[in-house]
């Protein structure tokens, strides 16, 4: 019965549509951020703020920061978005990924109580993987879709790393599994995400 289940097909089609819509949204936000660098348009910034601000705050809370601190770091992160927009390269990252790295660095900063050393890395001009603007957003959407398909054990170590900032040893201790298992689960998860990343392009 399964192969001929019209209901199931409808559900799949609906999910695909939702993913397509999300991919377009990601692309739009990425364009918006790239535009902000040129126009310095405050209205556009307010839109970016309305979309990303609450997500940035959610991420900071997940990392274990108190509410007030989360509010404060969110302000700092979005201020960085405004100030550093000219450094954003849409061929290298989507808006979400770029804003994620800015926020992460600010959180590291705060947790270490010292200035995070932001390392300027060489610019890979002749990058064979160079993508056109917006393509990163599509890749990210594909990644998001792939994360949903990970086995629970692999998704769990990924969430503990990214959402809770836990080191391999801390995860091992929390889950009561050997350090090697934490690492192999992360490796397996990354391998699967990479398949989606590379396979469908």
């Amino acid at each position, binding site marked *: 019965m399964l192969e001929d289940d019209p209901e199931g097909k409808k559900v799949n089609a609906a999910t695909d549509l939702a993913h397509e819509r999300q991919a377009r949204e990601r692309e739009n936000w990425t364009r918006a951020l790239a535009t902000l660098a040129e126009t310095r348009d405050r209205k556009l910034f307010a839109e970016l703020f309305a979309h990303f601000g609450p997500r*940035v705050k959610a991420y900071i809370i997940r990392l274990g920061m108190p509410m007030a601190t989360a509010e404060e770091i969110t302000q700092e992160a979005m201020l960085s978005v405004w100030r550093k927009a000219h450094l954003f390269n849409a061929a290298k990252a989507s808006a979400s990924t770029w804003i994620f790295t800015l926020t992460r660095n600010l959180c590291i900063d705060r947790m270490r109580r010292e200035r995070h050393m932001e390392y300027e890395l060489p610019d890979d001009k002749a990058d064979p993987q160079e993508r056109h603007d917006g393509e990163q957003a599509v890749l990210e959407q594909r990644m998001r879709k792939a994360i949903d398909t990970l086995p629970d054990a692999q998704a769990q170590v990924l969430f503990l790393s990214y959402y809770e900032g836990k080191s391999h040893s801390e995860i091992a201790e929390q889950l009561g599994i050997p350090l090697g298992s934490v690492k192999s689960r992360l490796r397996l998860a990354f391998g699967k995400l990479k398949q989606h990343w590379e396979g469908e392009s």
Partner: protein
Amino acid sequence: MNISHHFDDATLISYSSGSLPQGMALLVASHLHWCPECRVRTEETDTIGGALLDALAPVALADDALEQLLARLDAVEVEPAPAPAPVQNSDNDDELPAPLAAVLGQPIDALPWRRVGYGVQQVDLGLEGPGATRLLRIQPGISVPHHTHRGNELTLILRGSYTDEVGRFQRGDVADVDTEVQHQPIVDTDQECICLIATDAPLKFSGLIGRLAQPFIGL
């Protein structure tokens, strides 16, 4: 630079998610400075973070959050000290990767090297967090005692080379090992070997020499 040993995926995930201790993050950034291959992989692990950020249920901000922020947009930014300019494709064999150079603040030979064993000198970078971050300078023919690890250990070769059970490691290469690996590196040319080593837990030496050397080397 001809790099043939890179990071474990799991290490780059920790780097991207911001969960590495400071010294290990410094070591990763230093290798990334030299290694285009790992830079591409880091873009991928960063993208996981972007996708996960987007997946979160939004949490409402304070009512006046936007207003407050808009008021700050015109404020003059106090510029932090500029990051050191990245140097690429340097032929100078003593060139340090920019992130490490910024932390050390002086040439490698001018550092206060301290003798910690026969043919072995070290400088502890004294960074915060679990584990330790140190530079090790090992004379030709010397081997570091057999040891295993309770946590992760990252090594970045800055000068010279060594060989262990895994293979040969030269300038720019990283060794990324954990509890599963027991190894005994030996400096394999007539040039001394200098490397940056960062751990997230103390090393555990095995064998008699290891037990004798551990308190001495203080690794």
